[in-house]
């Protein structure tokens, strides 16, 4: 699905990724974790081709991402901050993204799921933060791509929408898709992910299941296991 080899990226003097090797197989939910500034978003954006690596190769479905835009047909991406042109209506934005990407039939179902019907004729500038995030999620799940990347998907959602999002993620997983998530909410990660990748100082510190992590760190719960990694390395 995704294979990353020897990925290096620095912003000025700040070395963010220092040789990341990662291969993600088809199917399942993978959470990318790490302290602030560990390079989670940079890693994800490199896969999307938004950040251009200094060194290393990334392949998605066997296609090299460098100087290529076609492979993004395989990816649905949910960005961290949702901000859309304020003069467009929700309906028009949906139409536009459909126009840019083609193939979809999933939209009616999703509109009902997130109760977006009353907002379709409103301008995006007039929506609340949570509703914008719903639109954002909607746009992500509208297409049936094999890889879904979610960057902090829980931001600003009310509890009901959060439950719906979790169900949606599970549904997509059941279809055999690969889902890559970053989140700071550990309970969400623990509940949903099959495997975690822990980034620390630009390298992969741990890759495996949550149970393996607990065993490795001798901690009973997940949150403490993460905390123990951090305190060991920063104390």
């Amino acid at each position, binding site marked *: 699905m995704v294979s990353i080899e020897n990925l290096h990226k620095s912003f000025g003097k700040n070395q963010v990724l220092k040789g990341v090797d990662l291969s993600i197989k088809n199917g399942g939910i993978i959470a990318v974790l790490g302290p602030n500034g560990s390079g989670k978003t940079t890693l994800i954006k490199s896969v*999307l081709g*938004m950040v251009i690596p200094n060194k290393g190769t990334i392949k998605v479905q066997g296609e090299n991402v460098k100087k290529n835009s076609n492979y*993004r047909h395989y990816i649905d*991406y949910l*960005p961290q901050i*949702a901000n859309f042109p304020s003069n*467009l209506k929700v309906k028009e934005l949906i139409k536009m993204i459909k126009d840019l*990407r083609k193939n979809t039939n999933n939209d009616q179902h999703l509109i009902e799921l997130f109760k977006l019907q009353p907002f379709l004729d409103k301008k995006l500038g007039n929506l609340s933060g949570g509703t914008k995030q719903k639109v954002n999620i909607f746009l992500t799940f509208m297409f049936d791509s094999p890889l879904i990347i979610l960057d902090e998907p829980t931001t600003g959602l009310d509890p009901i929408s959060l439950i719906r999002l979790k169900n949606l993620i599970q549904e997509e997983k059941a279809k055999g898709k690969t889902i890559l998530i970053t989140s700071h909410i550990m309970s969400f990660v623990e509940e949903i992910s099959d495997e975690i990748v822990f980034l620390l100082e630009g390298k992969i510190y741990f890759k495996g299941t949550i149970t393996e992590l607990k065993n490795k760190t001798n901690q009973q719960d997940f949150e403490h296991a993460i905390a123990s990694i951090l305190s060991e390395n920063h104390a």
Partner: protein
Amino acid sequence: MLKILKYSFFDLIRSRWSYVYFAFYLLLGVVLLFLNNDLSKAVITLMNVIIVLVPLIGTIFGVMYYYNSKEFTELLLAQPLKRSSIFLGQYLGVAMSLSMSLILGLGIPFVFYGLFKSNAIWDFSLLLITGTFLTFIFTALAFNIALSNDNKIKGFGYAILLWLLLAIIYDGVFLMSLIFFEDYPLDKLSLIGTMLNPIDLSRTLILLKLDISALLGYTGAIFKQFFGTSFGLIISFIMLIIWVILPVMRIMFKSRKKDF
């Protein structure tokens, strides 16, 4: 690219600022034409306004649009689209909507005034053509500045500085250098100096078209000799086109390497 262009364009022509910009030109056109009987004076006043205002609005709007649509651009970047088509589409969307405000805002009052029957149609067309060129040039420069500066405040600062430099400071320095070196033959130098600044170039083109170059004295005569001919006119337009193409190429080059 055409799809991005279409959506940026429609997004922009529905924004309040486009209407304000359009209404301003409409008002200006109406006032100058109907409260003033001298057409060539009206064109000169319009020229003075356009030469200063169009670059200013172009730079500010370009920078503002880029920064405002940053998150949306990121959303587009994750779609299967080429980077160059995203940025060119947005650039053309901004430049075209601004040009449309200009052309319609000034064009409508002129049409009502009876433009098609008057002799001023060529002066007026030239005015709109240079105005459109200036919009395209300065919007492209603004996109360049915004692409190179992630810091909004810095970006705005450089944009204003660029406008100030080309619209005002350049003239000052240019004049000073002419006075300073007045003992030397300056014909070529002043021609080249005019060609290198799109604002000066547009102003000279219009002034010479209006046949008031006699007011400019000896330099005017030289300029007339050059710009008045079709050769000079062609060279001038080529210069303006180069002024559009170079920044646009840099937009494409810069956007290919940028991290978002």
